C-alpha cells in the first residue's frame, strides 16, 4: 500500500470532506502529503470536478482546526510537561525567555509557518500553547496564513493542472530550503552573539560560573 496514493486517492474517492479531515490531522502534527493534496485539488478544480470555493473553505477550515488542536494541546498539556522538565529546558527563567520571545516574534513565526516554512507549523502550534501566546492573536495569524497557503497552492494546481507532481516536488524543495535558511539565520545570529560576547570576555576565567566572580 502506497501511503501517498491512499491519502491523495481519498480526495478522488470522497471529495471535499476528505480534504477537510486530512488537513485537520496533518495540521495537528501527523505527517501527510498535503502539498500534493492541495495541488491535486487545484487540478481537479481546473478540470471542473470540484469547486474552488468548497476546496478553499474545506482546506482552510481543516488546517485551522488542526492548528487549534496543537495549540490547545500545548496550552493544557504541554505546560505541565514543560514544568516537569524545567532543568532540561534551562529552568523557569529560560522558559520565561521563550515566552517573551514568542510574544515578540510569535505572530510573524506563526504566519510564516502556515505557508512558507510549513514543516515548522505543528511544533509552533505546540510551543505557542506552551508559552501561552494569546489565543486571539494566534487565531488571527493562523487564519491569515492558512488562507494564503491554501489559495496559493490550489491556484498553482489550477495553473499547472497537468503537472501536479512536478509542482508539488518543486514546492517541497522550496519549503525545505526556506526552513533551512530560517533556522540557519536564527542560529547564526545566536552564534554570532556568543562569539561577540566571548571576544569581550576573553580574559575571564572559564572555570568561574558564579556571576559575581566575573572580572569586568
Amino acid at each position, binding site marked *: 500500500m*502506497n501511503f501517498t496514493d491512499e491519502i491523495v486517492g481519498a480526495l*478522488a474517492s470522497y471529495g471535499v470532506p476528505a480534504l477537510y479531515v486530512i488537513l485537520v490531522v496533518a495540521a495537528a502534527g501527523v505527517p501527510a502529503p498535503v502539498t500534493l493534496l492541495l495541488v491535486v485539488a487545484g487540478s481537479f478544480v481546473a*478540470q471542473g470536478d470540484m469547486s474552488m470555493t468548497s476546496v478553499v473553505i474545506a482546506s482552510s477550515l481543516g488546517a485551522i482546526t488542526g492548528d487549534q488542536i496543537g495549540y490547545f494541546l500545548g496550552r493544557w498539556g504541554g505546560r505541565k510537561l514543560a514544568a516537569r522538565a524545567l532543568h532540561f529546558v534551562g529552568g523557569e527563567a529560560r522558559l520565561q525567555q521563550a515566552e517573551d520571545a514568542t510574544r515578540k516574534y510569535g505572530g510573524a513565526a506563526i504566519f510564516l509557518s502556515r505557508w512558507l516554512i510549513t514543516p515548522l507549523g505543528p511544533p509552533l502550534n505546540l510551543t505557542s500553547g506552551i508559552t501561552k501566546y494569546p489565543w486571539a492573536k494566534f487565531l488571527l495569524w493562523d487564519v491569515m496564513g492558512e488562507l494564503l497557503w491554501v489559495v496559493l497552492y490550489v491556484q498553482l494546481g489550477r495553473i499547472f493542472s497537468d503537472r501536479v*507532481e512536478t509542482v508539488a516536488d518543486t514546492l517541497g524543495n522550496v519549503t525545505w*530550503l526556506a526552513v533551512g535558511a530560517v533556522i540557519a539565520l536564527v*542560529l547564526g545570529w545566536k552564534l554570532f552573539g556568543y562569539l561577540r560576547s566571548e571576544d569581550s570576555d576573553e580574559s575571564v576565567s*572559564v572555570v568561574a560560573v558564579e556571576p559575581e566572580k566575573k572580572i569586568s
Partner: protein
Amino acid sequence: MAERFKLHGLHGRGQWLVAVGFFLALCLTGVFAYRVLHHRPPPTDEPIRGWMTIGYVAHAYRVPPHILYPPLGLPSAPPAPPDKRPLREVARAQNLTMDEVRARLMDAIIHARPPYPPPPPPPRPEDVVPSPNIGNTGGAPR
C-alpha cells in the same frame, strides 16, 4: 584540562549545540538550494500513479478521456458518467494490478497520439443499443 578541548569563543554544551545546529541548517539549505536550482521537469509525461483518476490521466496526457475506459473494461464515458475513482480502486475492482493498469492506459495513449490517426469521437447516447428486456419490446434499433 577541559579548557584544551574548547574552541575559541564557544563555551558549554548549549553553545556547541547551537553551532552544530547552525552547520546542519546550512547543509540543509545547501542541499535544497541545489535541488531547486537544478530541478528539471521530466522529459516525458508524469508517471501514472494510483491516486490519479481516469479524467486526470486524460488531462495530463492530453487525450480524450473516452479512449481510456475500454482498455480497463469500463463502459466508455461519455455516454456513461465519468468514473471519478482513483486508479488504485479501479484496479482493485477490475482485478488488475497497477502495473497492468498503467500498461493498458499507456498503450491506449500511445495509439491516440501521432503518428497514429486521431481516435474516433466518443459514442453518442443514441448510438448505444440498450440490452433487450424480456417482456419488453425494447428500444429502437439503430
